[in-house]
């Protein structure tokens, strides 16, 4: 294998591959990135076993062939050399990387490409399009709510469901839940609901442009994603996602309306004295005002009063700081409505005016 290419174009793809790879062991083939040069195209693959990645870029191929090289070091090399044309040349069990404009050269150990794991694949006809911007908005609004408790593995991913007239994403850690439903008029194929690990979703959020379409395909074991030149596949989380519909309150009695940015800023100030373990923050409601407060042992207290629209009875709700802060941070509306019926039962946080999503939070005990 021998080819020349533009360093920065190559570096961009390799840095994406680096985000896929989780192993940093020089002896493991899954620490390596797979390179295959043919027909003036370079095929790049990477995997962490659960997640597969593939892309193609134009290069000038002098000798077709393929190999795998330690991705972490390759990334390091590319980051260290200036922009320009570089040459990648395989010599026996090594790959020599050299810029054409400098007297520098790097030689990197390889592992034969036939040892690289086979990535799952699916027929092109199985893919269906979803507007990228919509899909990304769904991810942004839900993925943070995924549980990282491995004993509740079935909550370690975002639930993707085909609704009658669109797509639904739900994520929960058992104490808070994020819900997003996007109505899509384009024909969506029917598929069984799946639990998608957050890693692939975060990568889509980061790497997929807002314009255009993202293509999805789903089978029993995997979710496949295509956008631009990129293809990713992820294994799905097996297990039964909890019956989320049961915890979404049908109607709630009281409403509190406030400015999102104002509330978020006050919340961050008050968070200085939030107990580290419980992160409990208090919200005392009275006619058209809310007092945010916190207390950390005998170290100190914080209190901030905000005006808001509220006409219900005086009440105190305690919530985990993170559970209220995160949705507010990711929401995109200027105004937010918080709804509840009893201070000890689920609270709903939604954009005002209502949008495609909302968040359900379980409060904490006040005393």
């Amino acid at each position, binding site marked *: 294998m021998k080819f020349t290419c533009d360093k920065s174009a190559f570096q961009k793809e390799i840095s994406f591959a680096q985000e896929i790879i989780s192993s940093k062991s020089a002896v493991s083939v899954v620490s390596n990135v797979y390179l295959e040069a043919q027909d003036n195209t370079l095929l790049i693959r990477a995997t962490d076993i659960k997640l597969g990645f593939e892309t193609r870029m134009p290069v000038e191929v002098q000798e077709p062939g393929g190999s795998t090289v330690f991705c972490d070091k390759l990334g390091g090399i590319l980051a260290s050399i200036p922009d320009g044309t570089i040459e990648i040349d395989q010599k026996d069990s090594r790959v020599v990387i050299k810029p054409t404009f400098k007297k520098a050269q790097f030689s990197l150990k390889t592992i034969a490409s036939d040892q690289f794991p086979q990535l799952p694949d699916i027929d092109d006809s199985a893919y269906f399009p979803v507007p990228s911007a919509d899909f990304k908005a769904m991810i942004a609004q839900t993925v943070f709510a995924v549980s990282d408790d491995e004993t509740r593995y079935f909550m370690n991913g975002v639930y993707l469901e085909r609704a009658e007239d669109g797509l639904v994403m739900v994520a*929960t850690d*058992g*104490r*808070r*839940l994020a819900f997003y439903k996007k109505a899509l008029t384009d024909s969506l194929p029917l598929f069984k609901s799946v639990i998608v690990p957050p890693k692939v979703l975060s990568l889509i959020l980061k790497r997929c442009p807002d314009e255009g379409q993202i293509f999805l395909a789903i089978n029993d074991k995997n979710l496949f994603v295509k956008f631009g030149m990129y293809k990713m596949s992820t294994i799905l989380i097996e297990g039964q996602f*909890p*019956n989320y519909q*049961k*915890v979404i309150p049908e109607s709630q009695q009281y409403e509190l309306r406030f400015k999102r940015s104002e509330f978020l800023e006050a919340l961050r100030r008050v968070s200085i004295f939030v*107990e580290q*373990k*419980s992160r*409990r923050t208090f919200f005392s409601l009275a006619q058209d005002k809310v007092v945010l407060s916190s207390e950390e*042992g*005998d*170290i100190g207290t914080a209190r901030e009063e905000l005006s808001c629209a509220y006409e219900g009875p005086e009440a105190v709700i*305690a919530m*985990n700081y993170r559970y209220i802060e995160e949705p507010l941070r990711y929401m995109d509306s200027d105004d937010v409505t918080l709804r509840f019926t009893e201070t*000890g039962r*689920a609270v709903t946080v939604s954009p005002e005016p209502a949008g495609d999503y909302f968040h*359900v939070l*379980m*409060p*904490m*005990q006040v*005393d």
Partner: protein
Amino acid sequence: MPVYFHIDLDAFFASAEVLDRPELAGQPVIVGGSGRRGVVSTCSYEARAFGVHSAMPIAEARRLCPQGVYLPVRMERYAHLSSQVMSIFEDFTPDVIRVSIDEANLDMTGTEKLWGQPAEAAALLKTRVRTDTGLSVSIGIAPNRYVAKIASGVRKPDGLVEVPAGGEEGFMLGLPLDKIWGAGPKTQARLAELGIEDMARLRSLSAQTLEAAFGRAGGAFLYKACRGQDPGIYGSEPKSRSISTETTFERDVRDRETLESVLLGMTEELAARMYHDGHSSRTVVLKLRDGSFDTQSARETRDGPFISSRDIYEGALDLLRKKWDGRPVRLIGLGLAQLGCQGGHQDSLFEDDATRRAHKAAAVEKAVFDATRRGLGTITRARLVKPKREHPAAPDDEA
């Protein structure tokens, strides 16, 4: 006036070995990990005279004290002895914080009527421990847990140091800086670096100065510590608190039903205490002792806290099923470990029907316990009503 005891078992592991092998008495006994990298866990006072101390590599100890008796750690035996000692403490006050296997902190406030003045109570306690287990303890008495802890370490072994109310600050002033418990080598080094050489000098510094030098938490800690105020060493949420209860049968019990009934009663008692203190727990501990005094205990920890006594009872029955092999039972005990404050408990969104029912049951129980406590009569479970005859009477007989 608050009264706390801090109790330390003297050279515990080594003393336990001497207890089991009386011929070792008076010899330098060193208990620790075997192998090249082992360290000393505990050594007897005789060994300390050679300069051996805990956490020292065994190899170094052997160099300092070649004639010592080196023994491996028998944790199971020590744990057994420890729980015997702890249960003696629990006879003196229900409020026992087990700090570690050989240390406990007792809230003795308001026990004067029962045990006399603190020093008398402490003497009594020391005697009980010695006669029941053969071990010696050092006790520190003070108006707060922190000073009690330090006082327990001042005179060892078999010590008894009382710091009377109002004497905390004076007591601390008489100590060198390295006696400030909680100020480790790093803090000690920093103190030396700043030229703070004794307690009086430390005492003269303002809270602001200390916070500037040791950070907010560190500064506040030192400020309180050198004044003999409790900086909160056991936190507002004690790490490992437990409540327990046990019964010794007059005649050994062989039938499951009796054991289950007794457990049910104990469950109610523990639940009542737990509710009253506003605590919650998710660990239940069962203790069984047979006719030959062979004691075993087992514990089970659940994901979430026990909501009602029924939850606890189910946990207890589960342990009984696993642990009891049908041998006659002389003593049965039940406890709740790792009690925490309920404050800040976060419920789950996905509350199932069982949880909902448990919450309702707990509400009823709380009301019943509260009524009983306030002397509004006694309400109890039918199963716990003792039959008048050997066999439960038929309902029409009762009428």
